């Protein structure tokens, strides 16, 4: 724990030094109706780590991510990105939404979706130049989708669509990558391709946070976990926090013993 917290000069950073964390959440409460979806949550996502946000359905995993990104407005709470307010750090954050959150029938091509990731560079009226197209193609290549650049997005399989979303996030060239259920309903080849890209990002020192639902793969894919069920259940390295006790606390009776055996 202290090791991952070590600052560049070798001295351990104080735990409350928000500037140290690519993403820090304090006292976050979000509600869509009467009942809060996320209640009074603190979370600190560590630099250079791959963290899984796990919890049962409806536990507020996606809501936590969306509130952290400013997509939903929280009732209360403070979000900082490298110690500064989110609004000033947008170019350091890349986001991969749930695949089902958009209409794939939208009239646009694969390459156009990836170019959306360059919006902050292009601005309102900036021309798309060769170097922008080269960046977009390179990002598609990294997810193994280069040959689909001119396809309409509706003609892709679910896994291919997910990879296009990841390519768009890569085009953003961020330091912090937030992904909402990137492995949901994708084929094995896509899952492999995505995890390879994420591990590559981690190797480059980037920070990756993934809303994840498959407990069986947590140990293979991630360094850290954040367990949530409306409130925070546990947070830490996989060895520390991904324990049977914590999982029981998060999932309650809903966690089948078989699933548990596979996971822990």
């Amino acid at each position, binding site marked *: 724990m202290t090791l991952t917290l070590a600052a560049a000069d070798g001295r351990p950073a104080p735990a409350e030094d928000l500037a140290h964390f690519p993403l820090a959440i304090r006292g976050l409460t979000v509600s869509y109706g009467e009942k809060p979806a996320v209640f009074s949550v603190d979370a600190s996502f560590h630099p250079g780590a791959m963290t899984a946000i796990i919890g049962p359905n409806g536990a507020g995993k996606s809501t936590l991510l969306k509130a952290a*990104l400013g*997509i939903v407005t929280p009732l209360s709470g403070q979000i900082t990105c490298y110690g500064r307010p989110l609004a000033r750090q947008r170019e350091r954050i890349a986001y991969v939404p749930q695949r089902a959150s958009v209409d794939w029938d*939208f*009239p*646009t091509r694969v390459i156009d979706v990836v170019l*959306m990731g360059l919006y902050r560079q292009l601005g309102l*009226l900036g021309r798309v130049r060769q170097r922008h197209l080269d960046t977009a193609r390179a990002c598609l290549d990294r997810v193994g989708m280069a040959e689909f650049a001119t396809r309409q997005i509706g003609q892709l399989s*679910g896994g291919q669509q997910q990879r296009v979303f990841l390519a768009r996030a890569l085009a953003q060239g961020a330091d912090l990558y937030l992904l909402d259920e990137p492995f949901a309903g994708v084929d094995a080849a896509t899952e492999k391709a995505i995890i390879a890209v994420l591990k590559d990002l981690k190797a480059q020192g980037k920070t990756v946070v993934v809303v994840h639902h498959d407990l069986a793969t947590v140990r293979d894919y991630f360094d850290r976990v954040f367990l949530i069920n409306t409130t925070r259940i546990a947070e830490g390295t996989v060895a520390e926090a991904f324990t049977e006790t914590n999982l029981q606390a998060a999932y309650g009776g809903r966690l089948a013993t078989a699933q548990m055996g596979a996971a822990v």
Partner: protein
Amino acid sequence: MIGAEFVPLSLPPLLIGVCAAIACALPGNFLLLRRQALIGDAISHVVLPGIVLAFLVTGAVSAWPMMLGAGFAAVLAVVLIETIRRVGRIEPGAAMGVVFTAMFAGGVLLLEQSDTSSVHLDVQHALYGSLESLIWLDGLGWASLLDPQALRGLPPELPRIALTLIFVSAFTALFWRPLKISTFDEGFARTLGLPTGLIGLALVIVAAIAAVAAFDAVGSIIVIAMFICPPAAARMMTNRLEAQIGWSVGFATLSAVLGYVLAGYGPLWLGYANAVSAAGMIATVSGLLLARAAGFGPCRTRAGAPVEG
């Protein structure tokens, strides 16, 4: 038809029809993709109380106050719809239904309870407009287009709708990227720092402005048709939004020109003595184009159909 009477009699209504059709079709592309295409229908209902109020305040049937009243009512409706949708967390269609029926009913009540019923504020005019009556008596021939004196006699609807078209085109071009990104993926757009709520609001307000300017000249039938038919037909011709906009402008122009010509000359060709409503025919042509595209367009898909793979 390219005779001496073309310039004074047919040119202004044709230009007005084309401008109105394109001004509505442009925002219609985005409204369609946002599943808000019926907002044109909603606006056509909600402007009634605005027009009646403008009449009550000014006591005269004149274009500018009524357009202002209509525009105000449209913007109010748009804000109400957005508020109800966000606060109530309900579908946009339901919010529109609540707002436009209530405001239309309010307009009818207002009309009944005041002396306006005696004035010429009738349904016929609101629905079909009066495209054929927008003639240019000073236009004696093509040379009149260069004569400032004659140009001053142009029907005032023409500069109004032309200005509206320029405004709508400028809005679409300037905010192309934010409109496209936030229409496709609102959540992602917000993480880029785009004010998606404001963009959505601006889009419907621009649509409302286009609708009100077009009502004045061509009535609500064309407005409702042009918000939906050219963009929907265009969607089935291409899989790129850029090209879709181009197709929709083409379809809107074709509908306006073909509809106007068919309405004016079609019955004569068939041996009847009278022309039919140009507005009605323009809307009909756009519907037929949509039907063609739905039957034969190269990029038709069944929305929600499962994807192989």
